C-alpha cells in the first residue's frame, strides 16, 4: 500500500515541478515510528509530541509501534523509508550503541537528526535495608569487595548497563552487574533485595524513594533532576560521572533540506511550548529542545563517550 502510494506520488512529482511540492509540505499524514512496544517511555514521549506536532503541522501524525530485535526493527523501518519527511521517529541511546554491537545494524549515517528531545540521566539507587547511606559509603564498599556488590541493570548494551559501566570506569569500581529485561524487573529486584543497587533513571524509582523503600544516592548529570531537586549530582559529591539515556527525533537520511527544516522547526516549537513541557514533566520526562545541528553534536558527543566503554567491556563486534 505504502509502495503504491509512493509510486503514485512519484508519478505526480514527475508531472509537476519538484519545488512546488516541497513548499506545501506537509500535505498528508506523517508516520511516527516508535521502535519499542506501546506503553514504554519511548512510546509515551512519542505520543506526547506527536499529538501536539499534528496541531502545529496541520496534518495527522500517526504513531506506529515497530517492536522487535531490541529496537532494531523500528530503526530499519525508519532508515528504509522514503526520505520525503512523511516518516520520522524517535531514537534513544540504545540505537547509537547498537551500531557497534549487533549484526546488520542501522548506522547513524542512514538517519538524519531533526531535533533533541531531552536527556534521561542515570541515577544510583540503593535498597533501604542496605548499609549505604551516602555515595561515599557505597563507593568505599564496592572498592573493598570488587565484583561482589550486585547492581541491577539492562542486558549488556542497554542504557542502564552503560550507565553502570561508565560509573565503573570513571570511579575505578568493579560491580557484579546483574542483567534484567527492562526497568520493571530491575526495580522489582531492587525492592525485593535481590540486588543492592540499580542504575535505572530517576523517574523509575521516584515513588519508591518517596515511600522510603529505596535511597537515591546521586544523579549522573550536570545538575539535579527537576523531579528530585534534593538528590545531589555525582559531581557535587566529588565523583566525576556523567551518564544516561537520551531521546532525539530523526528521519531517514537524504530528506530535502526545506522539509527537514520545516520538521525541525515544528518540533522545536512543540518541545518549547510551556503546555507541552508541563505535560512531559508531569509524566517524568526532562525536556531540552535543540535544533538539528546541536542535537547532532550531542549525539556525537555521546558516541565518543560510549565507544571506549563498549570496547573496554568487549561488546564491540562491529568496530568503528
Amino acid at each position, binding site marked *: 500500500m505504502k509502495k503504491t502510494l509512493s509510486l503514485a506520488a512519484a508519478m505526480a512529482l514527475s508531472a509537476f515541478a519538484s519545488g512546488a511540492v516541497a513548499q506545501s509540505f506537509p500535505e498528508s499524514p506523517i508516520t511516527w515510528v516508535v521502535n519499542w*512496544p506501546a506503553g514504554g517511555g519511548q512510546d509515551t514521549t512519542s505520543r506526547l509530541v506527536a499529538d501536539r506536532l499534528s496541531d502545529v503541522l496541520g496534518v495527522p501524525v500517526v504513531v506506529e509501534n515497530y517492536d522487535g530485535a531490541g529496537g532494531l526493527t523500528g530503526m530499519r523501518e525508519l532508515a528504509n523509508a522514503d526520505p520525503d519527511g512523511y516518516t520520522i521517529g524517535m531514537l534513544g541511546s540504545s540505537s547509537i550503541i547498537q551500531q557497534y554491537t549487533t549484526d*546488520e545494524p542501522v548506522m547513524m549515517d542512514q538517519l538524519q537528526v531533526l531535533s533533541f528531545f531531552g536527556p534521561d540521566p542515570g541515577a544510583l539507587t540503593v535498597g533501604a535495608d542496605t548499609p549505604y547511606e551516602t555515595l561515599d559509603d557505597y563507593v568505599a564498599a564496592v572498592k573493598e569487595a570488587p565484583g561482589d556488590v550486585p547492581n541491577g541493570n539492562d542486558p*549488556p548494551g542497554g542504557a542502564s548497563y552503560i550507565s553502570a559501566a561508565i560509573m565503573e570506569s570513571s570511579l575505578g569500581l568493579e560491580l557484579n552487574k546483574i542483567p534484567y529485561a527492562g526497568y520493571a524487573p530491575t*526495580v522489582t529486584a531492587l525492592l525485593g533485595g*535481590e540486588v543492592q543497587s540499580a542504575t535505572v533513571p530517576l523517574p523509575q524509582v521516584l515513588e519508591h524513594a518517596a515511600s522510603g523503600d529505596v535511597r537515591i544516592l546521586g544523579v549522573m548529570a550536570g545538575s539535579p533532576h527537576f523531579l528530585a531537586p534534593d538528590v545531589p549530582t555525582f559531581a557535587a559529591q566529588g565523583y566525576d560521572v556523567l551518564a544516561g539515556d537520551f531521546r532525539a527525533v530523526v528521519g531517514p537520511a537524504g530528506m530535502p533540506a526545506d522539509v527537514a527544516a520545516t520538521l525541525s522547526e515544528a518540533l522545536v516549537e512543540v518541545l518549547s511550548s510551556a503546555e507541552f513541557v508541563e505535560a512531559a514533566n508531569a509524566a517524568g520526562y526532562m525536556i531540552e529542545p535543540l535544533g538539528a545541528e546541536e542535537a547532532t553534536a550531542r549525539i556525537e558527543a555521546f558516541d565518543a563517550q560510549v565507544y571506549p566503554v563498549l570496547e573496554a567491556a568487549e561488546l564491540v563486534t562491529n568496530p568503528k
Partner: protein
Amino acid sequence: MTQDLLATIFADLFTFSMIGLALLGVVLGLVFGALPGVSSTMALAVMLPFTYGMETAPAMVLMLAVFFSSVYAGSVSAILLNIPGTPGAMITLLDGHAMARKGEAAEAMAYALIASIFGGIIGWILLVALAPTIAGYALRFGSPEYAAVVLFGLALVAYASSGDTLRGLAAGAIGLIVGLVGRDQITDVPRFTFGTADLQGGIDIIPLAIGLFGVAEVLVLMTRPKSEMSEIPETRARTWPRWRSLRAELPTALRASTIGTFVGAIPAAGSAVAVALAYACEKRLSKTPEKFGTGLPRGVVAPEAANNACVGGALIPMMTLGIPGDSITAVLIGVLLLHGLRPGPGLFESQPDLIVTIYGALFVAIILTALVAGAIGIPVYRKILKIPQRILTAAVLILCLLGAYAVRNAVVDVWVAIFFGTLGFAFIKLNIPVLPLAFGAVLGPLLEENLRRTLVIHGDVGVFFERPISLVLVCLSFAILLVPLALSALSFLRRRPRRHSGL
C-alpha cells in the same frame, strides 16, 4: 474502602456516560480480542489516542473495559478456528476446539465466558482485598523462585502432554531451541540468528502459535480426501451448560483463579505460565486425565479462569508498586503517565479516589463483558461457523497472515507463522505432539534467564535448596518428571509395553 468502593461503583460509574464508555470498550474488546494476533495490548494501543482528551477516570474505564473483554475474547478464535490469539489461549484450544469439532462450539464459548467471569471476579476480589499482601509476596519472588516455578511449569507440561515419550522429548527440545533464538538476555550474545537482524529479538510466541496451531490445522484439513471432508457439524441448540455440570467445575475454577491471580501478580511471569500451571494441575488431579484434549469442558474452564484472573493479578504490582507486570499493564501505566499520574506506593495516599475508580471500573468491565458477550457475543460468534467451509478456510489462513504481522508490525513474523505452520503440519502427519514445542518456546527462555541470573548472583545452585519456595518447587518438579519416567522404564524392562500414540 468497601463502602467507598460501593459508593463509587453506584454513584460515579453507573452514570450514563461512564456505562456508555464501558460498553463501547467492551464491544471493541470483544471484536478486537476475537481477531487472532490482535492481543489485548494491541487493542489498548489502538484505543490509546482516544484517551488523550479524556479525564483520567473515564480513560481508565474505557481502557479496563477493552482490557478485560479482549482477554475473554481471545478464547473465541482458539475455540472456533484453532488459532490462539494470545499465549494464554494456547491451552484453551486443546479442549475448546475439540468441543467445537463435536458441534459444541457455543457451549465451549459459554464455558469459557462463565469461567472468565468467575476468574475475573476472583482476581478482582483478591486485588481489592489483598493487593499489598500479594505484592509483598511477589517481591520476595527472586530469580531462584522464578526459575523454580518455571521448571515446575515445564515439568507439569511434560506430564500433561500425553503421547509418546521420545517424540515428546524431541518436540520439547525443538521448542526450547526455538526459545534460544535471538540475543541472550544475560550476555547479549546472539544465538541461532544466522547473522540476520530479524531474528535478534527472538521468535515471538504469538506468530509461532498462530502457525503451529492455526495454519497447521487448516493445512491438515486441506489434504483430507473429499470423502472424509465434513463440515463442522451443526452447532447443537444448547448454549448454556446445566447448573449441575457447572457446579462440578467450581473447584477447578477456584483453583485456577487463585493460581492465575498469584502468577499474574509476579512481574513478567505472564498468563502463559498461569494457564499451563492451572491446566496441568487439573489434569494431575483428575480421575480421568486421558479425557483432557478430547473436548472436556474442564479443559476450557481451567485455562480461561486462570487467564482472566491474571487481569486482576497483573494490576496488583501496577497499583501497589507502579511496576508493569506485562505489556498490557505497561500501556495502562502509559495512560496514567500521559495524565500526569505516576502509579506507585504514593498513589494510594495521594489519589485514593483514583484507586477506587480503577477498582470499580474493572468490576463494571467484568459485569458488562458477561452481559454483552452472553447476550450478543456468543450468538454472533457462532455465526462464524455458518460461513461455507471453503471461504472460512481461506479467511482463516489470511487471518493467520494478518494476525502474525499485526503483533508487532514485523514482516519476519509472517515468515515465522508460515514456517511453523508447515512444521506443525509435518508434526501432525508424523504423529509428534506439538504442545511441548509451544511451551518449550514460552517457558525455556524464562527458565534459562533466571537460572543463570541466580548463578551470577549466588554463585552456585545450592541456593535453590536453601530457600523454601524454590526447594519445594524443585523437589515437586523432579518428582513429577522422574516418577513416570521410572515407571515407564520399569514397564519397558518387563517386556515391551503397549503404546498408544496420539497428540
